[in-house]
Each structure stands twice: as C-alpha cells, then as structure tokens.
C-alpha cells in the first residue's frame, strides 16, 4: 500500500524544480516585505518552508492538468505556472488580476494554467477535485487532478467522503497532504488521532505514499509515481508530504505556541538551501543558480510594479459574474 518510489531525477528536472522553488521563495518574501512596508494590505498565509514539495509536485504534472488548492496556496499556484503579473494584481484587488480582483488571495483561479479552484474552506477542495477528475475520466482527456490541503484538513468530513468516492470510482486524482505539523494554531498530535496521515488511506483501500516533502528528489519521484498511476487508470493516491510551516498560520501573528527546538530543526532542514546544495553537489555552477534567481527577481519587480500601477475594478463589476446574465442596476 504505502510505497516509496525509487529512481533518479535528472539535472534538467531538478533545475526546473529549483526555478519554481526560487519563484515561490522570492514571491513569498516579497509579499512579506511589502506588507511590512505598508505598500499592500491583505491577509497573507505564508508558504515559507513548503516551496520544494509544491515545486516538485507540479513539475511532475502537465500544463493542462488540474489543480485545486487552499488559501495557503500561492506556492501551488506559482509552481503550476500561473502568470506572475495577474497573480500579483489579484492579490492586490486590481482589475487586471486573474479574477478581476473579485476573488482575491483566497480564491485564485486561472483555468489556462489549470488552477481551477482555490478555496478558503478547509477540506472542501477535495470533493471538487473528484469532480474535475470525474470529468477527465468521462471525457477520457487524460488529465490528472491534484488537490492540495494541510494535515488539519484530514479531520473534516469532506476529506473522508472524497477519499471514499475517489477510490470506488478509481478517479485520476492525487490527494496531496502537505503535512506542515499545524492546523491553525494546534499541533498535529493534539488534533489528529492518526499516527500519520497515510494511515487514513488504509481505511479507503487507497494507494498512499509518505515522503519527505523537503527533499526535491524524493518528492518528485513520489509525485511522478502518483501521476503516472492516475494517468494510466490506476486510480487515486494519497501523498503525505512532510514539511514545516515556518512562519505560522497568518503572517504577523504570534507563533510562540511553536516550540523553539522545532523552529530550529525546521531552519536546519530548510528545503530551499538544501535543494541548492543538491544542485551544487551535482556540479551545477553557483553562477547558473544565481542567474535563475536574478531572472525571477526581475520578473517579480515587473509583476509588483504592474500590480501597484493597475486600476481597481469599476464599481459596476458588482453586477457582473454573479449570474450568467448581468444583474440590473
């Protein structure tokens, strides 16, 4: 049931994971710095520490595969390929955003890159992911759906209904649990009766993989195995990717409930420098990595400027997209 895929990841794939990791890492950092400086105003759910698992997962997907994620999902959206300018504009409520500013940070949607739903309700993405996968199964379009959620989501009913239905219908869906050890402010062991999330797959007779999500190679191999299985009609997989939420639930909130030794351990195991070291060990030059970082920093400058310079939506937009026809003024 619980398998650990083995194999090797080639340099090009690992560099692609690095590129996406850098994009996530720098974007997250920029959001936080602009929030501190007061240039933008939003409730921000940091993804610091969870970059590599998402970059690895999405690198194993095709561009037209589907993604469902949560309010802590900017790493997933970026890794899936969402346009950076539109994302920044949406996070800042601008008319040029992915959703014309109507969705905001918790409801990012970009069907062109497969970002189908971002939900602010814990656990509710899983049943919807089944529907995306069911559509692919009925249409035989070969797409795979990935739904991301935290360990806290596995304690809500929708998780269990969704896993059961996905398994009986053999849906091409991957349930990616990003086990970051905390649900809001409550530690895993205090809220979750299972020893580990993969144990919950046993009850649904579902294939499951537990993996160090901060290890790019292991994470990519796990993701690839699940994607191949789903695409070949083998049905769903629950992946439990171990990681750590390094900056708490909401940016700026008190995180004193996290034991200091856990924080230190997370810093020691930080996946971003770890991936860099892996690449350097493979004789990839520091210059090459620095050039990737610099290119992203430049894109980020453009995206932030685009978002800050963009107009807010017209008030009349309140009557559009509520129903299929415009609401009377």
């Amino acid at each position: 049931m619980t398998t650990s895929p083995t194999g090797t990841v080639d340099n090009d794939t690992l560099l692609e994971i690095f590129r996406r990791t850098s994009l996530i890492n720098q974007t997250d950092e920029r959001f936080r710095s602009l929030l501190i400086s007061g240039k933008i105003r939003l409730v921000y759910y940091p993804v610091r520490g969870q970059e590599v698992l998402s970059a690895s997962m999405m690198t194993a997907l095709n561009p037209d595969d589907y993604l469902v994620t949560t309010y802590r999902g900017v790493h997933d959206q970026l890794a899936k390929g969402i346009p950076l300018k539109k994302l920044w504009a949406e996070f800042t409520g601008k008319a040029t955003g992915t959703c014309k500013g109507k969705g905001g940070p918790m409801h990012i949607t970009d069907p062109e890159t497969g970002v189908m739903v971002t939900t602010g309700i814990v656990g509710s993405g899983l049943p919807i992911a089944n529907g995306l996968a069911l559509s692919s199964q009925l249409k035989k379009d070969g797409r795979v759906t990935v739904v991301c959620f935290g360990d806290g989501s596995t304690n809500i009913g929708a998780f269990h209904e969704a896993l059961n239905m996905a398994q009986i219908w053999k849906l091409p869906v991957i349930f990616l649990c990003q086990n970051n050890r905390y649900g809001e402010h409550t530690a895993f062991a205090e809220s979750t009766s299972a020893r580990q999330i993969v144990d919950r797959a046993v009850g649904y007779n579902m294939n499951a993989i537990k993996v160090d999500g901060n290890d790019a190679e292991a994470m990519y191999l796990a993701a690839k195995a699940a994607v191949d299985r789903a695409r070949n009609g083998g049905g769903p997989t629950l992946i439990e990717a171990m990681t750590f939420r390094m900056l708490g639930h909401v940016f700026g909130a008190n995180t004193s409930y996290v034991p200091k030794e856990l924080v230190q351990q997370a810093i020691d195991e930080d996946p971003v420098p770890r991936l860099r070291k892996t690449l350097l060990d493979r004789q990839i030059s520091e210059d090459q990595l620095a050039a990737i970082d610099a290119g992203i920093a430049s894109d980020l400058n453009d995206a932030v400027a685009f978002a800050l310079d963009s107009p807010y939506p017209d008030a009349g937009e309140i009557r559009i997209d509520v129903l299929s026809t415009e609401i009377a003024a």
Partner: protein
Amino acid sequence: MNAPTKISFSQGINMALDEALAADPNVFLLGEDIADAQGGGVFKATLGLSAKHGTDRVRSTPISEQAIVGAAVGAAITGMRPVAEIMFMNFLTVCMDQLVNHAAKLRFMSGGLTSVPLTIRCGTGAGVGFGGQHSDMLEAWFAHVPGMKVVTASNPADAKGLLLSAIEDDDPTLFIENVAMYAAQGAPPEPGYKVPLGKAAIRRAGGDVTIITYGRPVGEVEAVAETLAAEGISAEVIDLRTIAPFDEAAVLNSVAKTGRAVIVHEAVKAFGVGAEISSRIHEELFGQLKSPVKRVGSKYSPVPFSPPLEQAFLYSRAEIAAAVKATMG
C-alpha cells in the same frame, strides 16, 4: 403507441432528464440509488435512465452529500452539466458548504473564468408523514445566496419544462420537487417543451386580488379562487415557477391592476419568500395598494409526524380564503 393523455410529476422529471441526456453528452446524473440496479431513485424519477444511457452517466453514489455536490461542482467548472439528486431537501444541510461557498460563488470569485452549470434536484414537503428531517421547505435560504437560482413546479408539464431549462441554464439551479406531488397527474407536455426560468405563469385571471404562489400550493390556491369567485371575489393566481430570481414584472403588473396581494407558500411563514415579495410590492406600489399585503405559510414549528399535527402545521385553504377576504376589507 399513442401519446399518454396524462403523465405523473415523476414522469415529467424523467422525460426532462432523458431528453437532456440524449441531447448533450456533457449532461450526467449522480445521486444516491438513482441507477436502475438501486431502484431508479427512491421516487423512481430516474427509472430506466441508466439502462438507456449507461451507469457512467446515470451513476449511483455513496451516501455522501458533500462528495456528490462537490463532484458535481468540479465537473461543472470543466463545462459538464451535472444533475445531482439530493434525495431530500433537508440533506442539503450537510452539503451547504459546497452549495453556498462554491457552486453559487465560483463564477463571481473567478471573475467569470469558471461557471457552475449545475442542477440540484431535491424532494421535500409536509403532509406525507416524513417528520421533522425530511419535509422542510428551505427555498428562502438559497434564494438569499447571490449566484443561485431556485425553481419549483406546480404540475407535471412544468416539471419537465422547468427542469430542462434548469439543466441548460449556465447558473447553479436548485430544483425543488414536492414529494406529495410525485404521483400527481397532469397533461403531458409536447416533445421539446421548455419553460423559461424567471417567468411566472398566470394560472387564473382576475381583477380584485393577486394571489402569488408556487409549487404544491398552486393547486390549493386555484381551488380557493374558484370558491371565492362564487362569492364574487375575482382572484388572479400567479404561479412563480422560478422563486429566485422571481418574475417581479409579472407580480408588480398584476398587483398594480388589482391593488391587493396575498402570498402563499408551504415554507414556514416567518422570514420566508413571502416576506421578500411583500416588501417588493410595498416598495414599488405602496400608494396604489388598497390594503396591506397578506401572507399565508406554514406554522413556526418543525414539521410534526402525527397526522393532525402535520395538518395543523401546514397552511390551509381556509387560511388562504381568510387572507384574501382580509385584503378585501
């Protein structure tokens, strides 16, 4: 074979589903026990459809309402037109998140990038002894959520025509079926018959008072109107058919003519749809009203089991007649 001279409400629904499945490969049905192997639906509304269209497109589900509606939402945002059967309206309470936070809002929150052309069918209604958790009329809850349409039929032909329109509509639509009416007979619709959403029907023309109603009470109101005619009161009877958004023009035009209005629904009177319609009439026609608008609904109580209590709960013909006479002064 000759066309039937009468069809039941269930047959009307079955005809709409059959026609929609035949016309559009994107239409599929899901719900508990709806395939023929499980009996073709507890109210037999889907009987024979899985035999004709296959169990991929007429699929029985686990008893998992969140998973059912979630799967329907997910499939709908890829362009499919799912029709989900939620056996009883009260069961919508266990999937409110999917309906209210997702089905109704994804179009708006995505800035129109995704839409949810989903139809939810549900049975309900007092008078047949199902008690407190299988009988509620909760249409006002859903009418209050921007982004959803709410529809109900008063006869078999309308059931067919409205359901077909709901399936073809690009917005999520809740289709309410009164369980006391499944066996009710009525004139069969012509092939291809559709009833446009948002359009009321004038069931009886009259000049003294407008009675606005929908669903099962339409027949009761027509009977009362007949009795009142013998007493010299000429009532115009409007069957809304679409509860949200309701046909405001039809209501206001009629009340502008009669100067009197009574709203009748099976739902509990307090905070019901009647309150909204009454308010709209007062807002638009206050100076032209000859008397205050009256409302008739069921009592402020859970639906009781014991037959005399259940009857005491329900609105009655006597109450409708009394309300009309009260408006006549």
